[in-house]
């Protein structure tokens, strides 16, 4: 069976600082008409430096029923790719072959008009997205039910709350029945429960054998929804494979691009610590759960390990080694030390030692954190390196729900409905 989407050698060129590719003002156009006979002055030839390729030689194909996530940082070419696939912009070179009816959702509520009522907008939006009038009429009740707008059906949408607006917009889109669905970031809107509903609807769509191309910054959603991932970097396709690996490839790409992110942190040298401290701490390595160097940001909820090299010039009794995680505002969030491990044998140390710390699940939500490393003996600080390094934690689907936690910490919980057997206990609490 032929692939549903076939992209070959797709390139798209833009010119910087100019809209499009030719004369951008009428005056310029007229001037060119007059100067055309005499040829263009040298300086006016389109300079090579002003052009840039938003997409360069992209090639991939998608089989029927696949759900593919397209990831990449801003400016990597994701949106341009979607725009070419949706026929909004034309490629400079290459071909795209689409087999089947395609609908693209580059935003929810395309064409929604604030002055029109919910009912009117359903027909307007549905038609623009490619549904026939009969189709919309048949799905009308389903759309209204999904959107939960009830009594507001005949109210102009300008009076809707933003939540209602988004729900209605997504409801129309979700009831499209294309063979190929191209979705851009629509899940970035709406409240959590609605996002959940949208995710559910999308996996329903894919389970019906439809092909979905999904562009998002929400790694949790990509991980949850897609089997396969495509990574774009500076207009080129740099990875095509399993979604989990694609996310990893994307994340390592970010950190490689970031300045000086390394898993090996030198703790030696002046300026790292206050003068009166003894230089005990030498080096720290950031490792992932399996002990391989952590060169990418850490995914939320993942295990990590730290290897701290210390050198004791003279014997030290009851050594305590620890690391603290501070917010970028300097607030201590969590501290891990040998003193907080019941199984740590303790002891006196001389010479070089490597301390290995395993953190089964870092409870911090996505963000930047600063690490502080210290060595103490019976409560007295011997050595401490403030701001030893920064650690970036990125979103992941750690709960398997596609939802992200809020707050500083990512904690697990389990929920159930109370049953009569719980009554005694509850009364006890009330009493």
């Amino acid at each position, binding site marked *: 069976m032929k692939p549903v989407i076939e992209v070959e050698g797709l390139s798209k060129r833009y010119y910087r600082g100019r809209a499009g590719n030719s004369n951008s003002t009428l005056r310029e156009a007229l001037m060119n008409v007059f100067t055309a006979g005499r040829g263009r002055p040298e300086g006016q030839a389109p300079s090579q430096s002003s052009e840039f390729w938003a997409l360069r030689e992209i090639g991939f194909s998608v089989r029927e029923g696949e759900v593919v996530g397209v990831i990449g940082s801003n400016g990597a070419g994701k949106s341009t790719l979607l725009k070419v696939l949706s026929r909004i912009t034309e490629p400079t070179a290459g071909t795209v072959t689409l087999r089947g009816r395609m609908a693209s959702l580059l935003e929810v509520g395309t064409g929604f008009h604030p*002055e029109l009522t919910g009912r009117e907008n359903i027909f307007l939006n549905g038609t623009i997205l490619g549904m026939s009038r009969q189709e919309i009429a048949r799905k009308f009740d389903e759309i209204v039910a999904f959107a939960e707008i009830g009594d507001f059906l005949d109210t102009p949408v300008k009076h809707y709350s933003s939540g209602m607006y988004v729900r209605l917009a997504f409801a129309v889109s979700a009831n499209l029945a294309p063979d190929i669905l191209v979705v851009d970031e629509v899940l970035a809107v709406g409240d959590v429960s609605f996002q959940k509903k949208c995710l559910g609807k999308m996996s329903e769509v894919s389970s019906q*054998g439809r092909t979905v191309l999904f562009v998002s910054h929400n790694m949790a959603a990509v991980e949850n929804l897609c089997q396969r991932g495509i990574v774009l970097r500076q207009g080129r396709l740099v990875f095509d494979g399993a979604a989990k690996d694609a996310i990893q490839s994307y994340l390592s790409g970010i950190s490689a691009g970031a300045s000086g992110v390394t898993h090996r942190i030198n703790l030696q040298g002046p300026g790292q610590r206050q003068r009166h401290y003894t230089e005990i701490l030498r080096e720290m390595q950031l490792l992932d759960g399996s002990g391989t160097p952590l060169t990418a940001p850490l995914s939320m909820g993942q295990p990590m390990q730290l290897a701290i090299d210390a050198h004791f010039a003279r014997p030290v009794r009851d050594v305590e080694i620890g690391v603290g995680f501070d917010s970028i505002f300097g607030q201590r969030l969590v501290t891990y030390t040998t003193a907080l491990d019941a199984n740590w044998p303790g002891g006196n140390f001389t010479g070089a030692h490597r301390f290995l710390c395993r953190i089964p699940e870092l409870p911090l939500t996505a963000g930047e954190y600063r690490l502080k490393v210290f060595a103490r003996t019976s409560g007295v600080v011997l050595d401490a390196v403030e701001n030893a390094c920064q650690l970036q934690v990125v979103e992941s689907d750690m709960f398997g729900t596609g939802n992200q936690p809020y707050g500083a910490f990512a904690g697990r919980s389990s929920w159930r409905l109370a049953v009569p057997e719980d009554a005694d206990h509850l009364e006890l609490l009330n009493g």
Partner: protein
Amino acid sequence: MPMANCEGEKKSMGTSNAEMCLEGSPEKAREEHVIRARSGWQPVHFRELWYYRGVLYIMAWRDIKLRYRQTVLGGAWAVLQPLLAMLIFTVFFGRVGRFQSGDTPYAIFAYAGLLPWTFFSNAVTLSSNSLLGNQALVSKVYFPRLFIPLGAIGALLLDLLVGLGLAFVLLFYYHRPLYLTLLLLPFFMVAAVGASAGVGLVLAALNVRYRDVKYVVPFLVQMGMFVTPIIYPVNVAPAWTRPILALNPMTGVVLGFRYALLGEGMDWALTAGSLAVALVLFVGSVFLFRRMEVEFGDVI
């Protein structure tokens, strides 16, 4: 640099296929669609236009719904626009200027001309701004771009029909008979749409890149009023103006409306020339629009 373009090749497109897709039937015939870079003049894909016809309808419907929303007088504006213009011109030119409109009262003479002209001037103004006014659509979803300005023009047909109703009231008021020439009216209404689209499509496409158009349109419409025999009979125009009148795509439409409604003597040579210009303009503007359309998504 070559302009990029996209070519839609659709096999077995149509509502029936859409229905099949909906049911998810496994053996449905797949439409195949190839997107590739192309440049220059583009053919008009009638099949695609037919497939998306619902969009043209909904765009016109939306404009009608919106036009008079939150106005006190609502749909009455469709009648008031040509009526007020008629009153003004009747006072100034019928009384003061003393234009000879034969045995036809000047009021209905002017109204019969103002009716298609009001349609034309509104159509040109609205359609030339239509792409910019629907930027969100142009940059977020695909359907034939022609339908955006054409929808704006289509919505004005309702106003034209309402205005026509008033024309019959006026004819009745002035005890005028109806002539058999009235049967030609639908033809001249089609010509009015063609002439409006001929000018509107070009301006709409140019407006995407050159925002100068916005300032040009009001002048164009104002000037057009004087080089079209709306407020004066065509026989008072000096002979040297005839080529100008013949090149004006609206001359034929205005004369035609008057002929159909008032049974006036008809200047067929002038009308035929003008209608031919309108036809050429319409076809040319569709192709120019198609040619420029490829860059709308990038430029708008």
